[in-house]
């Protein structure tokens, strides 16, 4: 076993990962705050007013990163689920479970901001645009995973059942997106998609990237904090939990 593999597994035991996560949470939290602050400044004061949509288009600086994150987090959850099933490491299952609420949050935000952007631009709160519809279905997938986790008491079964659902879901996402796109173009003709016509000035793209990275750092911080809770909940009888300073105090 190469040394790299050995120490990689070293962190896969909850006891060693718990303190590491504790140190990482504040670091990523600070990164997130800085990036989002810069992103907000850019999106309000630097990005030019769009000639067609005026100031309203600035909503994309929240809508797009949230949509990216909702998809990215689901893929990361599926990655942890696959890892957990193959190596039978319970920690990766916990990571997938820790990411779920944050992923659902970003999906909801993507839908919320999409609606608030659609109203002034297209006159309707909800537009059956291919991307928005797929986002809605992704939200159902998140809700399904969280409901399944909640319904099973035995944590081992909950982990592995959730992992299977994630893998089945991740295989279906391209199919769902393709079928929704086909359905969308078929019924409405090539409807102008929400972002199709906004001229992508470089500053806008940069702002979106910075906001996305900020959201990414935020997700890691929240997920790591939540995974610490999950580890404590599951390892409450373990000896090392008893010796923790915050428990003994």
């Amino acid at each position, binding site marked *: 076993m190469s040394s790299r593999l050995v120490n990689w597994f070293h962190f896969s035991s909850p006891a060693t990962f718990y303190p590491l996560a504790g140190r990482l949470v504040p670091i990523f939290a600070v990164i997130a705050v800085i990036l989002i602050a810069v992103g907000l400044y850019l999106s309000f004061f630097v990005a030019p007013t769009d000639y067609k949509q005026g100031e309203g288009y600035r909503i994309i600086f929240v809508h797009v990163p949230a949509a990216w994150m909702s998809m990215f987090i689901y893929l990361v959850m599926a990655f942890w689920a696959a890892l957990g099933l193959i190596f039978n490491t319970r920690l990766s299952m916990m990571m997938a479970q820790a990411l779920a609420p944050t992923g659902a949050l970003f999906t909801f935000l993507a839908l919320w901001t999409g609606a608030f952007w659609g109203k002034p631009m297209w006159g309707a709160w909800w537009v059956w645009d291919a991307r928005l519809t797929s986002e809605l279905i992704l939200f*159902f997938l998140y809700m399904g995973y969280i409901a*399944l986790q909640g319904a099973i008491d035995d944590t081992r079964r909950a982990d592995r*059942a959730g992992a*299977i659902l994630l893998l089945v879901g991740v295989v279906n996402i391209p199919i769902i997106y393709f079928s929704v796109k086909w359905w969308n173009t078929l019924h409405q003709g090539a409807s102008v998609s929400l972002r199709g016509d906004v001229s992508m000035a470089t500053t806008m793209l940069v702002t979106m990237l910075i906001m996305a990275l900020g959201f990414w750092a935020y997700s890691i911080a929240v997920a790591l904090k939540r995974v610490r809770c999950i580890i404590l909940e599951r390892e409450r009888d373990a000896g090392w939990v008893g010796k923790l300073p915050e428990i003994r105090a």
Partner: protein
Amino acid sequence: MFEAMTVLIRRDLLLALRRRSDVLTTLFFFVIVVSLFPLGIGPELDTLRLIAPGVFWVAALLASMLALEKLFAGDFEDGTLEQMLLAPEPVFVLVLGKVLAHWLITGLPLVLLSPLLGLQYDLPGETLRVMVLSLLLGTPALSLIGAIGAALTLGLRGGGVLISLLVLPLYIPVLIFGAGAVEANASGLGAAGHLYMLGAILLLALVAAPLATAAALRISAE
């Protein structure tokens, strides 16, 4: 190799014959849902003709999902599921048999009945033919994908609602291409493209779904 599978199929069909009520409830559910819409929307035939594909497909989808809960529940309670997991055959082959039997009991009757119900919506012969074809390709895919949800939620309280939450998002492509095929045919676009896609989804489900269901069964039966 398929000997145990055929045994399972014959057993489930025998059980369905012995307990006819299970078969009929799914069928009547489909009939009732399809008949409700004209009452809700009004008797104008041209509007009915417009909404028919969607109504039929959503009704078929809900009927198949309702029947899912009983797919493994009976075997789980009386212990035959354990014997299935301990059979010398690969589990996904047995799952294929179970799902095929389930489709023969709940899916096929819908397909055969839909032309009759189509008359309620004054659908021309050609549209009815495409409707039956799309349902014939779609309902097995629904059963295969639904089986994953049934296996995951085995023995859980509130299983029925949970299954629908897990499985509905995965049903959407089948619904889109199924209803789309009928609608495309009615509007003269030709349904070939949709039916091919439906066939592709069915093939993918045939290959992948039993494997996922087998793994889920093994986890749930622990």
